[in-house]
């Protein structure tokens, strides 16, 4: 499918909000791909981390929000530690998660979790998980 790119799209309110919430300039990314190269969770992702920034640059925020990638980011900071342009990708992912949940509600339904496993998890796993997956 051919995607239409326009000034309205690349300068959309969504892009502005993501930049504001994340505190990041998405245009700083020049797509060297180092984030994608080192991401330890990439195996589970449907898009690579740099492709997520790419979609935001193109103003295709909706596609970025649909991607499972944002939920698989563990904020491990590997990408940010090595980014040549100092783009804090974990913050961008956080902003996308917040936006996704504002639009669609929580990503985690506690009732659906495996009860047995639930009893096993350490406290911090819950707290962290709930903070990332719920509003």
């Amino acid at each position, binding site marked *: *499918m*051919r*995607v*239409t*790119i*326009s*000034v309205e799209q*690349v*300068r959309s309110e969504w892009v502005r909000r993501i930049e504001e919430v994340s505190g990041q*300039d998405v*245009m*700083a990314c*020049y*797509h060297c791909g180092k984030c994608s190269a080192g991401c330890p969770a990439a195996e589970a992702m449907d898009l690579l981390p*740099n*492709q997520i920034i*790419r*979609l935001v*640059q*193109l103003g*295709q925020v909706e596609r970025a929000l649909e991607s499972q990638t944002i939920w698989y980011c563990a904020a491990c900071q590997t990408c940010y530690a090595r980014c040549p*342009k100092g783009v804090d990708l974990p913050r961008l992912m956080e902003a996308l998660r917040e936006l996704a949940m504002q639009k669609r509600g929580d990503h985690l339904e506690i009732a659906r979790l495996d009860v047995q496993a639930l009893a096993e998890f350490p406290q911090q796993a819950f707290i962290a998980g709930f903070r990332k997956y719920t509003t």
Partner: protein
Amino acid sequence: MPAKAKAHRIGLFVCHCGLNIAGTVDIPQVLDAFRDEPGVLVSVDYKYMCSEPGQELIRRKIAEEKLDGVVVAACSPTMHEATFRRNAESAGLNPYRVEIANIREQVSWVHAKDPDAATRKAIEVIRTIIEKVRYDEELLPFTLPVVRRALVIGGGIAGIQAALDIAAAGFPVLLVEREARLGGRMAQLSGTYFNFESAGDLLAQKLEALRARPEITVLTESEVESLNGYVGNFTVRIRRRGEDQPREESVGAIVVATGFDLYPLERLPEYGAGAVPDVISGLEMEAMLRPDGPTGGRILRPSDGRPPREVVFVQCAGSRDPQHAMPYCSKICCMYTAKQARLFRRQCPDGQAYVFYIDIRSGGKGAEEFVQAAMEEERVLYLRGKVSRIFRDGDKVMVWGADTLSGQQVEIAADLVVLATAVVPRQDARELAQRLRVGTDMHGFFNEAHPKLRPVESLTAGIYLAGAAQGPKDIPETLSQAGAAAAKVLSLFSRHELVQEPTIAWVDPELCSACQLCVPACPYEARRPHPWKPVVTVNAALCQGCGACAMVCPNKASKLRNYTPEQVLAMVDVLFAPAKAQEGT
């Protein structure tokens, strides 16, 4: 066979050239083959014969063994013949008794897969060259006067800089420009990409400096019609538009700085073939960005004169396309595109610039930072992918491209499209090259003598190259190259006379019948019938020793020094009957 004193104390020096030769050719076997060669007193090898220890080895052997001839089996004579001859001369041997057996370009490199055959061929090549040395005469070079005045062809920034640097040393310069005004392509530019300095201001400074130099004579609306002569003594015929008589000028050196053209839009059918008014070239964009340009510095669509809001820049329009257009990279487009996109955004704060690219080539000082700033400060959106199609759709220009980074096909309805069309040689570059007798590549860019170490010299002595006539380059590089060409001219002019190689043609008056077949055969116009004697004469200064005259001479009266028919026959003989030839010596 002539009864002259033949070389009979010959030294053979075989170079390994690291692994370049030794990796293929069996050097010990080669040395063995000449161990008992009559007249060959020395046969030794060394890793790099051209290095100081290698040269020292040759000098020592010449002295110790009183050698009267030397064969160096190594790389092509164009590389090191001069080196080895100079070296031998310093050891007291006549340099024209030194010959190169090319066992690299003509042996090891081309037969790398068959070492045995390569070794046999190396031996044969060396054998013939030894035969040649036996018959080599001891020659003396002669000198020619130098006209210390330069001709610069092309009045763009390259030509201006070269003229300035030559004139600064006090030498007269003739600057010939085809157009009515100096400045060339730089006069068409808006600003440079480092700091947006106005190209016009920069050019004005250079022109001011030019006017302050009494040594420089500017001939506008003029073209070089023909060239005769040789390094230090060229005669050039220049015709000014509208004048009947061309003027003839004497110069000692020439700098060719004729600049570039752009690949024509009409030859890019998928991009509208020049028929969509709002698809323009980079130079047309420059014109709009120039404060003194047709729009007073405002970017306006050619179709309706309105300012565009969305502008798409398409790089590699005709470049990096061996199938349809030019295979090479035009080098300057990435940077001027970034500059134009930034300038557009500064002019139109609510506008959006898009750049389609394959690779962003912002090499060079400050260039990468400049492009990054375009993305961050002007928020120019770079899209990695070559545009496939551009067409008009109402008052929009549709651009079909791809973003290979997100893996999507994209479409932009733009108001204006700027094509970074390929930098190509001037249309008539090849004709000029023929007139000047310098080489061009397959595209028509002038060829340098060596891509690494002799970037501003042509293969014709006394003719130097500067700027985009030699290949796409930006302004700083052009200025450096122009300065470099000037340095070569100044080196030449530091001497009052030049040394000329004596390995040229001569006419044996006993054999010449003055048939004059050789006169048109000579590509250097070095031959004239004698005013009253029935022979043809050779202008030694013009003769380059190519041998065309010897080929056509029915009487074998035209001969090349140290390439006589006897010599060549001896070389052939020894090749086909080595045993017999050996008996004969």
